[in-house]
């Protein structure tokens, strides 16, 4: 045997062994959600919320500053149709200089313009960008925490579109209770303890009557959660004594009447604050507000200095469990909207795998029969190359950790059909050379070398199409593109290199064979 051929043989066997090592057992190839069953979610973070929250904070801060400086104004109003804008109305024009100095000094993140007796403040675009980016990042982190708490394995959580993007893709294999997962991911879970200044009253008018129908500046109106309270409206202090962020630990427990509840422990700093609030306001009501709905408003019976307490509101075991979970995992900085949701049950996935395998095997067998029938011994050669191709494809999928999806299976099947194309081109060329009266060995050589460019050109175009498909495709379609790209690339190796080697091996030993079985 020629040395050259020996090395080629070693290379081919090494590639084959490596592929088998990588892909065996087949469970090493991760399955996509459409085969394993699971959830695919596309979420959008309503980043306007983050800007709105910042605007609210800044308005509060400004009100205090203005008070301190004794600068008078009629009122400050937040723009209804544009986020990150608010207006100071009817300020004291005499003292415009002072107001401008103050804004220049401590509101550097805002652009302002003075029009008559109004000052319009707009958040700077780079600040807004930063806030939005932070909101998405925090949401992503919170989703991670919640998914961890749910104990789901191998989740993929990815932000789409880089720093400017507001979408998050969540992929959760093997979810068997999609509704619960969706609700848990979606909850904002902003928990606040606020002092009750009035109410509950059946209507907003009744609630505000003692205040002349207007909401006092340091207070706000909050609805009672219809599931937990009698409904109605509460007047609460605007500033929260403690929030969910201060919680160090939360778990499901039971209250003194044995109903499910959530008990929590605060961190030391907030424990002191909570202690002070409960001391100063003993006998008053303290409302527990979750996502803008009052859960309960118990009377502060005694001062609480231990920093631990309990939240109750007629929860079921599961609701209490989920509330504890989201409290541990932290609140979302903004509201979450679902843009896309796909849930594939495990039995459909199993069915797809079965059908996919059947069609792969059918395709292989049909191609095998055809090639051997049409090209005789050379057909066997092609079939060996094809089997190598499939093995290398599997090895590469395992190596790149590319998930096998249902369209990916379609990609494998197509690869089977397209890989033998290269063999066909070579064999037809060899036949052509033979018919021109060339010898077997030179026909083989000419067949391979002359068909090579054509095969390359033809495959490159398919790969170009697959690359664009990968670039613009999502999830399963990417699986298809990846399989096709790998499969066709591997086919160049198997149909040209391996197949040639097999010819060389079989025709170099028996010197000068004058008949080629093709």
């Amino acid at each position, binding site marked *: 045997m020629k040395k050259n051929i020996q090395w080629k043989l070693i290379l081919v066997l090494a590639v084959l062994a490596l592929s088998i090592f990588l892909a065996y057992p087949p469970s090493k190839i991760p399955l996509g959600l459409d085969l394993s069953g699971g959830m695919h979610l596309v979420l959008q973070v309503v980043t306007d919320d983050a800007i709105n929250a910042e605007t609210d904070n800044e308005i509060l801060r400004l009100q205090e500053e203005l008070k301190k400086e004794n600068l008078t104004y009629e009122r400050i109003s937040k723009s209804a149709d544009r986020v990150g804008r608010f207006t100071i109305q009817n300020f004291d024009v005499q003292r415009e200089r002072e107001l401008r100095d103050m804004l220049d000094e401590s509101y550097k993140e805002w652009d302002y313009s003075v029009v008559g007796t109004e000052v319009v403040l707009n958040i700077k675009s780079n600040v807004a960008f930063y806030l939005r980016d932070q909101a998405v990042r925090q949401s992503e982190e919170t989703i991670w925490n919640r998914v961890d708490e749910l104990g789901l394995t191998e989740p993929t959580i990815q932000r789409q579109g880089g720093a400017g993007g507001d979408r998050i893709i969540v992929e959760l294999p093997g979810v068997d209770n999609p509704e619960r997962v969706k609700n848990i991911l979606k909850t904002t879970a902003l928990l606040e303890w606020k002092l009750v200044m009035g109410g509950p009253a059946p209507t907003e008018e009744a609630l505000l009557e003692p205040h002349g129908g207007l909401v006092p500046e340091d207070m706000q109106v909050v609805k009672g959660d219809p599931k937990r309270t009698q409904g109605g409206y509460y007047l609460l202090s605007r500033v929260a004594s403690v929030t969910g962020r201060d919680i160090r630990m939360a778990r499901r427990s039971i209250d003194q009447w044995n109903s499910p509840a959530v008990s929590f422990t605060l961190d030391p700093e907030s424990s002191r604050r909570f202690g002070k609030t409960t001391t100063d306001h003993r006998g008053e009501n303290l409302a527990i507000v979750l996502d803008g709905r009052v859960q309960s408003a118990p009377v502060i019976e005694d001062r609480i200095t231990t920093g631990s307490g309990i939240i109750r509101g007629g929860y079921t075991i599961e609701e209490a469990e989920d509330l504890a979970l989201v409290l541990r995992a932290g609140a979302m900085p903004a509201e979450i909207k679902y843009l896309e949701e796909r849930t594939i049950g495990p039995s459909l996935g199993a069915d797809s795998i079965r059908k996919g395998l059947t069609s792969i095997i059918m395709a292989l067998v049909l191609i095998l029969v055809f090639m051997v029938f049409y090209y005789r011994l050379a057909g066997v050669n092609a079939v060996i190359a094809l089997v190598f191709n499939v093995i290398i494809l599997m090895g590469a999928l395992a190596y790149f950790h590319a998930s096998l999806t249902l369209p990916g299976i379609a990609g494998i099947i197509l690869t089977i059909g397209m890989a033998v194309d290269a063999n066909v081109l070579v064999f037809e060329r060899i036949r052509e050379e033979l018919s021109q009266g060339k010898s077997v060995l030179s026909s083989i050589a000419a067949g391979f070398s002359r068909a090579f460019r054509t095969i390359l050109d033809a495959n490159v175009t398919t790969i170009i199409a697959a690359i664009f498909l990968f*670039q613009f495709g999502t999830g399963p379609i990417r699986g298809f593109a990846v399989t096709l790209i790998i499969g066709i690339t591997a086919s160049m190796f198997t149909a040209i290199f391996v197949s040639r080697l097999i010819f060389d091996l079989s025709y170099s030993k028996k010197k000068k064979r004058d008949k080629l079985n093709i």
Partner: protein
Amino acid sequence: MQIFKKPNFSFMKYKYIALGFSAIIIIIGLLNIIFGKGLTQGIDFAGGTLVRIKLSEPMPVSDIRQALAIADLGTSKIQAVGKTQTEYMIRTMQATEDEQQQQDIEAHEIMGQKVVDVLRGEDEKAAIDSGKIDLNSIDEGGLSLLIATDFPDEAEDSARRIIVFRVANGIITSYEQIEQEIGISSDIVRSLQTKTILSRLAILSRESVGPQVGFDLRRKATQATVWALFGMLLYIGIRFKFAYGVAAILTLTHDILITIGIFSLTNREINLPVIAAILTIVGYSLNDTIVIFVRVRDNLKILRKKEFGELLDTSINQTLSRTIITSGTTFITVASLFFFGGEVLNDFAFTMMIGVIVGTYSSIYQSCSILFFWKKFFKPKKGMGK
């Protein structure tokens, strides 16, 4: 074995007939798209909810349609999977003209849920409300806890076996099945009977796509197709002469137009996998064209005396058997996908089948005709060779 020993067909003779034939099919397709049935977009592009269900007992489509019509869901699209009358894909259509509601994915989801509720029926709803649990949707952990209250030792194992059976079959149809086919002890089955119900419907999959995502996917699909075509033009332009690039792109456009025309005529839905198939066709149908073009280029050097039309014919004939066989092998594989691959990939396989046939036909009949006309009208000074 050889299909064509020494083929000598004069393809170029029929170029006008072929062009006319293609033109007619393309026009019929386009007319149908613009004035007729149009192109039905699947939920990937149009948005909406698609629920795939399995029933424990056969139910004809007409019954399902009737049940949905009563609940104001008459516009839903119902498609049977297989012939057993137990598996269906139901796509809800928004009946409301409220735009705000159409924008909202949750509205779609509610519609999907309504479909499921209607088919489950009142009695099941009452049973669930009274605290019974549906064995066909409970998860393994929950089932294990449920059994554990009476049979703590066997709970985990029994729950696992029941769920494995359910995954394999899609739905559990009766309590006898649990006892006889899964082999759960009759005591446990009796206890389950008091605590659970077996819903007559199991949800195999549920997909909701919001309008924003649909819009994005539509844009991406268009971009991918346009860029892929451009990539082809560039590659062929570099490897061959410009004329060949143009001929290749026109041939591809021809293939795409015929394929989507047939799609419109057969009333299939365009979804992401279909776009993937069309793009693959874009790449694949070029293979045959390239094989022929390479031969044309070679022959321009060897057969200098030959008239161009004749030369094209010779080239097509010389490569005819490989054109047919390469397409044939690919067709065999996509056909096996079409017949054995199941519902989800059916449209993909269908598109590929059409594409492979059209691609082969156009490689033989159209690509060379375009080269012929190019030479005739533009009379390139340096000839058609490189």
